[in-house]
């Protein structure tokens, strides 16, 4: 397994270089003048201002020159400066990544654990009320647009009932804890600021549940199907014949095998959500990577678009690798090589 991992890790930089190159080339060949996102409409009419902006942003250089400079900077971890925020793209990404990771971790935790539990219950009580209930939950989670369900949830739980805080990661009147990990809940706990911790956790609940609900639907249906298949296998009968309890048979014998296909979904969904939790981030004013990507695309912010693309590729590669490793733990018969 070590050789396999080493091989995969060594291939990563090459794959990322390919992604960065493709993103750079695409950004330069698609229609759209980047100056239009740097300058305002008045400035676009002024040749002096246009010339100054071109020089400042390196847009007066040829594409090969810019590519060479870009690669040189990229090798030093510099994605360039965002046309829109005027800050280094790496800084923007590092600022937003913890917000997204905190949201996605929580959503995946909720979606995966609840989805697996519902899938197991649905398979165990096949065609019973639990199965129908799980199917209904899965159906709603997968089919209701997340922006709509999120707005409704915000209105009900925050505005009407007042049980949970609304948009954002922390009430604005609360001073954010000193950033150590970027996860507000963790940083608040590290700082011993339990008021901020509770508030940050409260802010996390609604977006995590609404985002995790969509994941829950897919996972529960997949686990149910796999469980039903696995439960017909001879070794399950053997385990039962040996007197193993129901819970032990379900969780230890059946679920471990049924989990393998779900791991693939979990891994890819996690990676997808790093850049793809756009609607949830928008509705909950969550300053993460997804909303950054949308704003960058709207503004033709090439450096930011390339930065997000490379980050997304890195997330997929990492998630893929971790999923492969998880297979081994879920099913020891699997060997990586």
């Amino acid at each position, binding site marked *: 397994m070590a050789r396999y991992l080493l091989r995969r890790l060594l291939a990563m930089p090459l794959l990322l270089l390919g992604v960065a190159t493709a993103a750079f080339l695409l950004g330069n060949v698609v229609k*759209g*003048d*980047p*100056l*239009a*996102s740097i300058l305002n*409409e*008045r*400035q*676009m*009419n002024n040749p*002096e*201002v246009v010339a*100054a*902006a071109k*020089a400042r942003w390196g847009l007066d250089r040829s594409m090969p020159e810019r590519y060479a400079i870009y690669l040189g900077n990229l090798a030093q971890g510099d994605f360039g400066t965002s046309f*829109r925020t*005027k800050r280094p793209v790496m800084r*923007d990404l590092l600022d937003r990544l913890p917000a997204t990771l905190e949201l996605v971790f*929580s959503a995946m*935790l*909720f979606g*995966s*654990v609840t989805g*697996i*539990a519902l899938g197991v219950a649905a398979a165990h009580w096949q065609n019973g009320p639990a199965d129908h209930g799980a199917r209904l939950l899965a159906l709603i989670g997968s089919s209701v647009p997340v922006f709509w369900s999120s*707005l409704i949830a*915000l*209105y009900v739980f*925050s*505005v009407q*009932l*007042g*049980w*949970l*805080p*609304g*948009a*954002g*990661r922390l*009430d*604005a*009147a*609360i001073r954010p804890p000193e950033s150590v990990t970027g996860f507000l809940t963790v940083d608040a706990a590290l700082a011993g600021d339990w008021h901020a911790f*509770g*508030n940050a*956790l*409260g802010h996390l*609940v609604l977006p*995590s*549940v609404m985002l995790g609900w969509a994941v829950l639907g897919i996972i529960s249906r997949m686990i149910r199907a796999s469980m039903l298949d696995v439960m017909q296998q001879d070794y399950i009968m053997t385990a039962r014949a040996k007197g193993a309890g*129901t*819970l*032990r048979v379900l*969780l230890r014998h059946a679920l471990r095998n049924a989990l393998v296909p779900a791991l693939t979904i979990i891994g890819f969904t996690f990676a997808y959500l790093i850049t793809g939790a756009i609607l949830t981030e928008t509705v909950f004013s969550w*300053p993460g990577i997804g*909303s950054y990507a949308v704003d960058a695309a*709207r*503004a*033709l912010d090439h450096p930011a678009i390339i930065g997000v693309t490379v980050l997304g590729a890195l997330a997929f590669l990492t998630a893929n690798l971790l999923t492969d490793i998880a297979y081994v733990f879920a099913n020891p018969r699997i060997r990586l090589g």
Partner: protein
Amino acid sequence: MQPGLRFSPAAGPALAALALLGLGAGLPGPAAAQDDTIVIARDNDFNTLDPSRSWCDSCQIYLTAVYDQLVRVGADNETLEPRIASGWTISEDGTRYTFTLDPDAVFSDGSPVEAKDVAFSLLRLKNLKAGASFLADGIAAIDAVDARTVAVTLTAPDPEFLGKVSSPYGAIINADLAAEHGATAGADAAETDRGEEWLLENSAGSGAYVLESYRPDDELRLAANPNYWRAAPDASAIVIREVEDAVSQMQALQSGAVDIAMQVDADTAATVSAPDVVTELVPSFNFVYVALSPGAKALEVELTRELREAVALAIDYEGVLEFTTGGAANLIASPIPPGFPGTKGLPMPKQDLARAKALLAEAGQPDGFTLIAAYPEINIYGVDLSIMMQKVQQDLAGIGVEVQLEPVTFPVWRERVGGDHIPLTAVYFAPDYYGSGQYAGYFGMIPGAGWYGRAGGDEVPGLKNAAMMALMEEVRTASPEAAVDLYHRMALEMISDRVIIPLVNPSLVLAYRKGISGMRYAVCCNLPLEELVKE
């Protein structure tokens, strides 16, 4: 018989996930903003926090809270009042302004505001050739006569110069501090200045607040300036929280998570019945307009003045107001909005289909023609441009003019409107300062004006408006009273050009929680933060 499930430690993760919900439900709900911190929900459009590079609505709010200008428009939205300049004189020929600086004025680090700071700030604005540099284009030289006296020499008389320096972009920066962090102001500043990155993280002003932190697309946090040289602001901190849409802003306001929601539209405000929330409708100087470009390459007919007039007469103006804002807006006669000098008594636009059809026939287009209408797909000041353009499309169909709508992103719109130009488009305007000259200089059909270029002024014979040019020249040396009449005539010329057709002068909704006072719409800066008080 189905065997029952028994509790097992293996079920822990499932319980943990469920606990996430349960734990949240046990937490305190939305906390009202604490202490005297004022929290504002706003869809920010910051392009930077560097005063000399910025140009946006949110920038205006920030720059007037954190920086001071030489002068500032008073609460009546008209009169200029001393700020850093305690007084000023203007030379007889109107080209030299000498400002005396207030001896009490100090920056947030305690250092005095001096003539060199004024010179640095205004020259940097001019020489960076970025943001609102057009406001300083007329500056020829700035002399620091002594530490408390600064003289600005203009290339030509400009009766609106004081208005221009009163704009938020005329912010006076602590020159030594900014220079220490890479800011430059010389003629080569566009190439040599490296101050923006620092100014995105720090402020260097003498305003009521200082920048505490800024996270783009998340929040801007201001703290009261401990060395503020005027009456200290009431709130010790102000947080501008990024909340994108009107519904979310209103939800945050109702729940008590924010104290003020800045971009609530009239429709959304009408749905609110919360006793703790106050909504007021106030007039604004902002407006949304459509524009015709006779120089657009995509035109299938020559867009003569008669045809432009026909298009203007085909629009149901009252209907547009109702359609876009439910009536929470006013008609607007000319590209100079009501309330600015020269706008009294201007004729309001009216639909006249018979006259419009007659004009089409006279111009040899009795069956109408097709116009491509590309516009930025945005909702601005409560007006959804897509909805507005659908109404325009419907109205123009009444005279046989087919409008093909093409909503695009703002950068694409900028590129197209400045490139091949767009036959029919829609966009908005908000003032940079109090003065009608900015409208004449932007919307007039005179060389150098923004819309003269976009309308194809240099390529289309007869588009240049000689009368407008003469009026612009005349106003340079006119008395303030005479200038009002000249601006009135300019407004009539711009109406007559039929290039810019203003449609909606939207009222603004001030939405805030009870206990907040000092809310007002200000021409300088939308919302003057230093005036806000939280009980």
